Structure formats: structure tokens, C-alpha cells
């Protein structure tokens, strides 16, 4: 009976302390302008900024200059059609390559389309003819626009030309000769091949992890700067148990990031028309372990932070690396084995993969099982490490306190003896 009472007492105390720590931590977050920047300003402003940067989605005005040595009806028709494609804009027609090259050097154009003088003649004699396309490779999106537009026009125009010169008895027969096997290409998910739709969802997820690491790291660094013995835990009767500290703090961050996630993952995508074909419930279920994993990882890492500024110096540059390691821009299958394993240390890797597939490709939890399980596993592992970090700190503080206590006692005795 008595033992049960004691257990009940401990649990009650534990819950009370957890909420006390929760309240304290909330206060500390709101008192610290540095932490506020990372918990609120960055998650609020950054996604908007990125969406704004990439909002045009695709290159629409890739500038092209033409050298038309053929100067024929067909070459002019070709030019007119390229200019009519949505992505390419013809900025001028030059008489020779020198002049065109100068325009490219001056960045007035980013590619040259060259028609040979025998362009029209070749076509009319039934020979294959070649149009040369020279591209500046500073922007791959431009290159893609030039190549696709020029190729499309060349295929269409070629077919029409052949059809006109070889009239067949019926329209259908004509089609069969010039186009024996038609094909169609379909872009599924992110149907406009948009740059924002491709990159911004990944950034949204990464921002959550990075700001948590920075913010919580900063709180840890501050605690070390303020507390006695440069310890993570203050000397306070509420801060006696590992579990209550870790849970109390985590509760604070979960509550705050619930709001942050609502903004970055629900409102921002809507504002900027990013693809959102995922079911909200699925997104929610998926984000939960992601937040847990990020928070516990951050608490673990905050144990290593000696001052409040060190997280920024150590972790900011890693964002670029983590974005590439996630396999969203550089295909996962092409990432070397070693880096793939390193990637699994961070929640952002499965987080980005899973979220993007749910939100852009309409996957259900079934299709992201691997990522989902990885996130829960990470959450579990980092919870344990977070507890270990605080356990060590508590023991260390206790030792130091009792050591000081002993020293003071000895000192008092010596004083007493000498007097």
C-alpha cells in the first residue's frame, strides 16, 4: 500500500514538473529574440521568400539570336515558330556568326540558331538538312528550353513539309507514312515541370529541421552560459528527472511547431499554388514522427553546444548538403553509398522524400512506409540519446554540487578548528 502511494506520488510529481518545465521553456523561448528569429521569423519568412524567388516556375524568356544564311521561306517559317513557342524569344536575326556571337557575349542572347545556306535547297531536294543550335551553358533551364523548342519545331515542320510534297490519297495514309508510330509524353505530378513545385516543398521540410536545430541549440548554449558549472540543467528542484526535462521541453517545441507547420506546410503551398495533392490527414500523420525526430535530434545536439552562437556556425552550412543528400534534386540512385548512409542520420532525408511524395505525387502512407518507419526509428533513437545527454548533465551537476557542498563543509570545519 505504502509502496503504491510512493509510486503514485512520483508520477504526480513528474507530471507537475513536466508542465513546470514546459512553462519555463516557453517563457525562455519568448524572452530570447535570437531563438524567436529561428522559431518564428525564419519559418514564416523564408518559405515565402523562396516561393517568391522560384514563383515563375519555368524559364519563359530564353533569349535566342538567329543567323539565317538561307533566308528562305522555310527558314523564316522555322524562326517564326520558334519565336511562337512559350519558352523562347527571338531577340534578333544576324547576318553572320561573328555578330551573333557578340550578342551572346554581351548577354543579349543565350543561344544561337544557325541555318546553313543550303537549308531550303536540301529540303526541296529531299535531303536531310541540319540546323545548328549553340547554347550558353550558364543556365540549364535555358538550355532545356532552347533544345526542346527547336527540336519540336524541326519535327513538326519537317513532317508538314514531307506531307505537302508527297500527297497521299487520304489524310490517314499521309499520317502513316510520315508518322508511323506517334508518341506522347506525359509529365505526371508537378505537371508543368515547375522549379518552385520541385524545390520549395523540400526546402519547407528542411527549414523545419534546421530551425529546430538552431533554436534548440541556441537555448542549450544559453543555458550553459547562464547556469552554474556551465551545465545544461539549472539547479532547481523541478529539474531533477531526465524524463520530465526531455518531455517538458519537447512539449514546448511541439506546441510551437504545430503552428509553424500549419503555416509552412498548409498555408504557404496554398498561397503559392504549389502542388498539394496529398490528403491532409496523411500529411499530419507523416509530419508527427518527423517533428519528434527533429526535436529529439536537436535536444541531443544541443548537449554539444558550448555557447549560444555555436549552432549557427556549425549547422547553417549543412543545409545545402542536406538538401542534396535528400535525393530530391540529385537522384537518390546516383548518391554514393557512403553519403546515403550519412543522410539517414538526419530526419530531413526521409522527411523530404516522404513529404514530397505525399504532397506532390499523392502517395499514401502505404507508399512511404520505408520513410515513415525510418522517422519513427530516428525519433526513438534520438529520444534515448536526448535522455542520455540530460542524464549525464544531471549527474554531473549533482556531483559538482555535492563536491562544493563538501568543500564548504571542510572549510567551515577548518574555520571552526582554527577559532
Amino acid at each position, binding site marked *: 500500500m505504502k509502496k503504491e502511494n510512493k509510486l503514485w506520488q512520483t508520477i504526480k510529481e513528474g507530471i507537475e514538473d513536466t508542465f513546470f518545465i514546459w512553462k519555463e521553456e516557453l517563457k525562455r523561448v519568448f524572452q530570447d529574440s535570437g531563438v524567436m528569429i529561428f522559431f518564428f521569423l525564419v519559418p514564416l519568412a523564408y518559405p515565402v521568400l523562396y516561393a517568391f524567388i522560384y514563383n515563375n516556375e519555368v524559364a519563359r524568356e530564353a533569349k535566342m539570336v538567329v543567323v539565317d544564311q538561307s533566308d528562305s521561306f522555310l527558314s523564316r517559317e522555322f524562326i517564326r515558330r520558334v519565336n511562337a513557342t512559350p519558352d523562347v524569344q527571338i531577340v534578333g536575326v544576324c547576318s553572320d556568326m561573328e555578330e551573333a556571337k557578340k550578342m551572346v557575349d554581351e548577354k543579349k542572347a543565350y543561344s544561337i540558331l544557325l541555318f546553313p545556306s543550303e537549308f531550303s535547297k536540301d529540303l526541296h531536294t529531299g535531303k*536531310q538538312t*541540319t540546323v545548328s543550335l549553340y547554347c550558353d551553358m550558364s543556365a540549364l533551364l535555358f538550355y532545356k528550353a532552347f533544345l526542346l523548342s527547336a527540336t519540336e519545331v*524541326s519535327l513538326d515542320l519537317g513532317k508538314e513539309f514531307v506531307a505537302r510534297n508527297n500527297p497521299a490519297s487520304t489524310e490517314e495514309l499521309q499520317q502513316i507514312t510520315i508518322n508511323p508510330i506517334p*508518341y506522347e509524353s*506525359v509529365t505526371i*505530378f*508537378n505537371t508543368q*515541370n515547375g522549379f518552385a513545385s520541385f524545390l520549395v516543398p523540400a526546402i519547407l521540410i528542411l527549414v523545419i529541421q534546421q530551425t529546430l536545430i538552431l533554436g534548440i541549440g541556441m537555448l542549450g548554449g544559453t543555458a550553459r552560459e547562464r547556469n552554474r558549472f556551465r551545465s545544461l540543467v539549472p539547479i532547481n528542484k523541478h529539474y531533477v528527472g531526465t524524463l520530465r526535462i526531455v518531455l517538458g521541453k519537447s512539449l514546448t517545441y511541439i506546441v510551437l511547431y504545430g503552428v509553424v507547420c500549419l503555416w509552412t506546410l498548409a498555408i504557404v503551398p496554398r498561397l503559392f499554388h504549389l502542388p498539394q495533392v496529398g490528403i491532409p490527414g496523411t500529411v499530419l500523420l507523416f509530419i508527427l514522427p518527423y517533428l519528434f525526430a527533429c526535436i529529439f535530434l536537436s535536444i541531443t545536439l544541443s548537449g554539444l553546444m558550448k555557447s549560444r552562437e555555436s549552432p549557427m556556425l556549425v549547422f547553417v*552550412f549543412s543545409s545545402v548538403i542536406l538538401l542534396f543528400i535528400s535525393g530530391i534534386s540529385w537522384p537518390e540512385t546516383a548518391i554514393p553509398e557512403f553519403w546515403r548512409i550519412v543522410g539517414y542520420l538526419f530526419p530531413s532525408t526521409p522527411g523530404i522524400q516522404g513529404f514530397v511524395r505525399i504532397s506532390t505525387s499523392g502517395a499514401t502512407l502505404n507508399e512511404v512506409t520505408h520513410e515513415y518507419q525510418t522517422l519513427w526509428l530516428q525519433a526513438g533513437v534520438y529520444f534515448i540519446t536526448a535522455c542520455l545527454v540530460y542524464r549525464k548533465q544531471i549527474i554531473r551537476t549533482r556531483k559538482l554540487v555535492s563536491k562544493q557542498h563538501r568543500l564548504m563543509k571542510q572549510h567551515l570545519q577548518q574555520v571552526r578548528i582554527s577559532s
Partner: protein
Amino acid sequence: MNLKQDMHAIGAIARREVKRLVEKPIYFFCMLIAPAISVIFFISLMRQGLPTDLPIAVVDLDNSATSRNLIRQLDAFEQTAVVMQTLSFTEARQEMQRGKIYGIFYIPADFAVEASTGKQPRLSFYTNATYLIGASLLFRDMKTMSVLASAAVGLQTGMAQGYTNDQIMGQLQPIVVDTHAIGNPWLNYSVYLNNTIIPGILQLLIFLITVFSIGTEIKFSTSREWLQMGRHNLAVSLLGKLLPHTIIFTTVGFMICAVLYGYNSFPLNTGWLPMLTAMFLLVISSQAVGVFMIGVLPTLRLGLSFASLFGMLSFSIVGFSFPVQEMHPTLQALAQLFPLRHYFLIYVDQALNGRELFYTWTEYAWLLGFLILPVLIGRNLKDALMYFKYIP
């Protein structure tokens, strides 16, 4: 005499700074380890230049010798690997949602029969643009395959009718576009991305370290002592303090150039001098921007936050992935405020395209122009160093 004293003060402050750099491991990490990690990561990540063997699924409802031949040929493309063959499109789509494949090639039932009897069977291919790079590479391969398939049939019919190869090609594809990717004919992504990403990381670290080293002087109230050593001349104090950084970062920058243009033999059309100069200017202009940041926000954590956010933003706004010309006009103007933007333009002109210096000198001038920033904020910074009380 005055100059001699100044030189002396600069030397003394520089020696003091070197001592400070050695004492704190964080400097060692940010100045040497972090750039090294980044270089190793990005160079090894993209060592193939182009991702090879991207997985696709083939939905083959025909299952004839022709369709199997088509699949074999598709698999033989360097960028494409057929990892799955299925009869159900739904299954393939789910595999795509699982992230296991980036594309689907669809061959309809009776493809071979219809193709040879002139019934125009339609090939379809699907790419998942959620993964933009993978999708565009696969698009290229699958499109080529479809065109080739069409050509193969045409060639067969044409030959049967007794035309020559030239004549048939003149009919099948009268106009060919011959593409020349100037400077990067391999479409090497490592060339395309790493030439800007790695210097970008260096720029970020320079911002952070410059802000940190000055900010800690304020935080731990050693700034007066530092200014005293420079005989209360801010220029002298700053020069002395930042000189060791400049030397270290420039060395690191040159090492980066050595890795990019030496070890990897990336295009370097106008020789070493223009790029090494650009790298040196990137280092000092980034330092100048760093001084400006801590001058504007003399609290260490706020200054560092500014540096982090500005430094991270530069990767997007510089326009090496998404061209600046396609951004909002406000952003086009803003992009000028990032040293990396000008470094990128110099790289494009000089290393990638080998253009005359005439077209590029303004970018060098821009980089030099950043050196005015510390002068503009000097008063504010000096006040902060003298009187600012650090509020934790």
C-alpha cells in the same frame, strides 16, 4: 612615420588574432573543416557528372519480339535502367509514388502488329517531375527511343519500297537539330553546380566568421582593448584583425579552384589568373559584407542570424539553378547585393565561355565596390565597439 606605426599596429593585432583563432576550435572547424567537408561531399556526389542508370518501369502490354527489343535498347541508354516490367500501369504508378522509379514507358497491346500494318500504335512515356533532374534526363532518353522506334519502322517500310537510306532519312526526319552545348558539352552537372555551390559555401562561412570574430569582441568586452591596439583607428584595427582571415580564406579559395580546375579539369578557358583573382575578390568582398552585417546589428546573435539568412539566400538568388532573368524584377536588383552573384557571372564569362575581359570587368568592379561597405558603416561599428553593452 605614421604609416610605420600603423603597420606595426596591424602586425600586432594580426598576431593577437592568430592567437584567438588557434584558441577556439570553432574557427578551425569553420575555416578549414567545413569547406573541406563541402568540397569532398559535392565533388564525390557528382563525380559521374550525370546520374546514370535512372530507374524506370516498362508497361509492356505487347510482349513481342519488337517490344522486347525496344526495352533492351532503352535499357542500353546510359541514363536509363529498366528495373521493372509490369502489365499494370497502376502498379507502375504506385512504384513511382514509392520513389523507386522516375519514369514509365508504355507499350500498348498489339504494338508490333499494328506498327507493321500501318495502324499507328501510340507509344507513351511518363516522367515524374517531382524529381526534376531525373525526369528531364529520362524524358530525353525515352523521347529519343520513341523517335527511333518510329524511324525503325519507317526505315523498314522505306527499304521494302526500294529507297536509299539517305532518301528515307530525308523523309523521316528532314530537319535535324545539331546541338552544341558550349563550354559543357557533356552536360556535366558537377561543372554546372559545383562551380557556384562550393564558392557559395565559402562565402557563407566568411560572412559567419567575420561577424563572429568581431561580435565576440563586443560580447566579451575585449573590443576596447582591440581598438586601443589599433590606436583607435577603426581601419587599422579591422585590417589587422581580418588580415589572418583573408590569408586563410584565400588559401582555402585557391584550394577550391585547384580542386575544380586542376583535379577535376573543369573548363577554364581563360587560364588561372581571372578565376584566382575572382576568388580573392570574393573573399575580401564577403569579408566587407560581414563587417557591414555586424556593424548594422552589433549583437552577436543577431549579426550571425543576418549572416546565416543572407548567406543561405545567396544560393537561390544567384541564379545558377533558376536564372535571375526569370525572377521578379525586385529580385533581379537584389541579386546584385550578393558577392556570389558577381563571382558567378565572372565564372560564366571567363572559365566557362572564355570571353574577353571587356565583357566582364564590370563584375570585378562590383566585387571591389563591396569594399566600400565597411566605410559606410564604420561610425556605427566603432560606436558599438566602444560603448555597446552586450545584453545576453
